[in-house]
């Protein structure tokens, strides 16, 4: 064959790929270095944390930083386990509600025919570029006027409006052939039955992707605790660790207080690990969702 051109997704190694490795390997190493760093930092004993010159890798790993972290309570006396419990419960509820809402409207926008459909799709597509921080003040006013401030709802409801999630699920549902649904309808299936028995099983990859994105948003979120909640017992784990990490840096020199450095690293690691683990398990599903992610 005369064609010697491109080899997208090659199955074998050839020396022509070497140039890509030369760029990609150092880049990947640079990207993961901070992660390797925080893992080492979190397990360092006190003397190694303040060794000069600093050493990158931990010599004698210890769990002391984690123990310290779990032992400290916030200045108001709320134990750390309370924040952690709050976050776990909130994350679970938000995940379930988001998936439900998104699959219902994704199905309607993809498979139902109605007059306003095109308009609604365009509105949601515009909303993909929505930047939540730009409207944090009106959002705050909405939360307060609905009486949601200082309740668990203030953590959950604002995050349910996910244009990106709806978009990804809708694009994925578009791939399901109409004939399957039509056959079910002729057999008398109602919308909710179709969603439960046909749509949900077929769009699992997209739902997994939305779940990951939602998880990242909820788990890492400290904003709702900052702005909408004053009751310390309702605040999130992210908020707690955030304030803990921030209070361990002195503003004058930007350097770290002796006792706090290891704890801060441990808390950063605890926040980050669940994201990573979930993503690793679901990465093939995410990739198959991304194939249909295009905006047409």
């Amino acid at each position, binding site marked *: 064959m005369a*064609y010697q*051109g*491109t080899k*997208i*997704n*090659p*199955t074998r190694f050839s020396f022509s790929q070497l140039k*890509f490795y030369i760029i*990609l390997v150092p*880049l*990947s190493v640079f990207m*993961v270095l901070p*992660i390797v*760093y925080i893992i080492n*930092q979190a397990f360092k004993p006190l003397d190694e944390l303040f060794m000069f010159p*600093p050493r990158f890798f931990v010599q004698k790993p210890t769990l002391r930083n984690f123990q310290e972290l779990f032992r400290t309570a916030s200045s108001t006396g709320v134990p750390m386990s309370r924040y952690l419990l709050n976050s776990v419960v909130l994350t679970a509820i938000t995940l379930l509600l988001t998936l*439900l*809402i998104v699959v*219902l*409207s994704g199905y309607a926008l993809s498979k*139902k025919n109605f007059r306003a459909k095109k308009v*609604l799709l365009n509105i*949601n597509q515009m*909303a*993909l*570029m*929505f930047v*939540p*921080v*730009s*409207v*944090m*003040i*009106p*959002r705050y006013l909405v939360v307060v006027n*609905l009486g949601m401030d200082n309740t668990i709802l203030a953590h959950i409801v*604002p995050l349910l409006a996910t244009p990106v999630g709806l978009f990804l699920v809708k694009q994925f549902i578009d791939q399901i052939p109409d004939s399957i649904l039509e056959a079910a309808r002729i057999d008398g299936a109602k*919308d909710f039955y179709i969603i439960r028995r046909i749509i949900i099983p077929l769009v699992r990859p997209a739902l997994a992707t939305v779940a990951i994105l939602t998880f990242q948003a909820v*788990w890492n979120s400290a904003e709702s605790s900052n702005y909408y909640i004053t009751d310390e017992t309702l605040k999130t784990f*992210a908020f707690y660790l*955030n304030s803990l990490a921030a209070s361990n840096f002195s503003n004058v020199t*930007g*350097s*770290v207080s002796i006792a706090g*450095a290891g704890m*801060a690293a441990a808390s*950063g*690691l605890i*926040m*980050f690990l669940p994201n990573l683990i979930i*993503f*690793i398990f679901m*990465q093939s599903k*995410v*990739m*198959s969702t*991304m*194939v249909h*992610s*295009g905006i047409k």
Partner: protein
Amino acid sequence: MRAKLRAKYQQKSLGDALSLFGLLLPYGIVFMLFVAIPIAVSIALSLTYFNVIEPPRYMGLFNYITLLTQDEVFSRYILPNTVKYAIIVGPGGYILSFLTAWMLAQIQKLPRTIMALALYTPSMVGPVFITVVWRTLFSGDEAGYINALLLRLELIDKPIQFLLSSDYIMGIMILVSLWSSMGIGFLAMLAGILNVNEELYEAAYMDGLRNRFQEIIYITIPSMKPQMLFGAVMAIVNAFNTGWIGVTLCGANPTPGYAANVIINHIEDYGFTRYEMGYAAAISVALLFLVTCFSKIAHKLFTEKD
């Protein structure tokens, strides 16, 4: 036959309409409450003076005029910073994501998966992580890794206060943002490149395509425009959403000499520190306008014409 069946269920359209309504209602409500209404309220409040305690007082375009002519901090620091930051992190990060995704597509599956994971991982880390890692790396005393390294290489003779210096903080903020910018837009583009029909390349080479660069311009990008657009929108949103990084890194708002303050810090400053909500809303509207401009350009570039 089919037409008949279709006609049959158009008869029970009332039940169908109700069901449709029920399907769209939950998302409709949250979307209205937390996306549509906040945007409308922003626009309305931006025309008023509002300090949360007294009811808003109508002021016409006063806030916008103040923003453009009186607010020296905005015109001297915030706006130039925002534009600079958004252009480097938005389009810059986007091009970087695309080129990286393209190179990843040229290698085998296993190393590709591992490296894609390495590149995507930073986009998952939260604010705590960023505070801890990057503040210690750039810490201003000898214990900061970057300072220690530079001292050891004898490039400097005393540690630099990276995070407190108006010369460095913006650069560090951009570096950190780019580091964490390869999110789902990057994954979408990677998936897009991998799904370009291979026969297109073969045909194009027979028609006289000469090199990889032409291949990207004439085949790869045109065949994955929808993913390119999704990636672009995500890159823009990311650039405007990550403005908190500067303040987080140096631990104070404003940052030294306003060097790393971007538009969202300004909103926060007026809205939540000074409680000048009307003015803050006007800044929000300016931000929405900026985001829309960037997105318009992306749509112009990548919308499929048909």
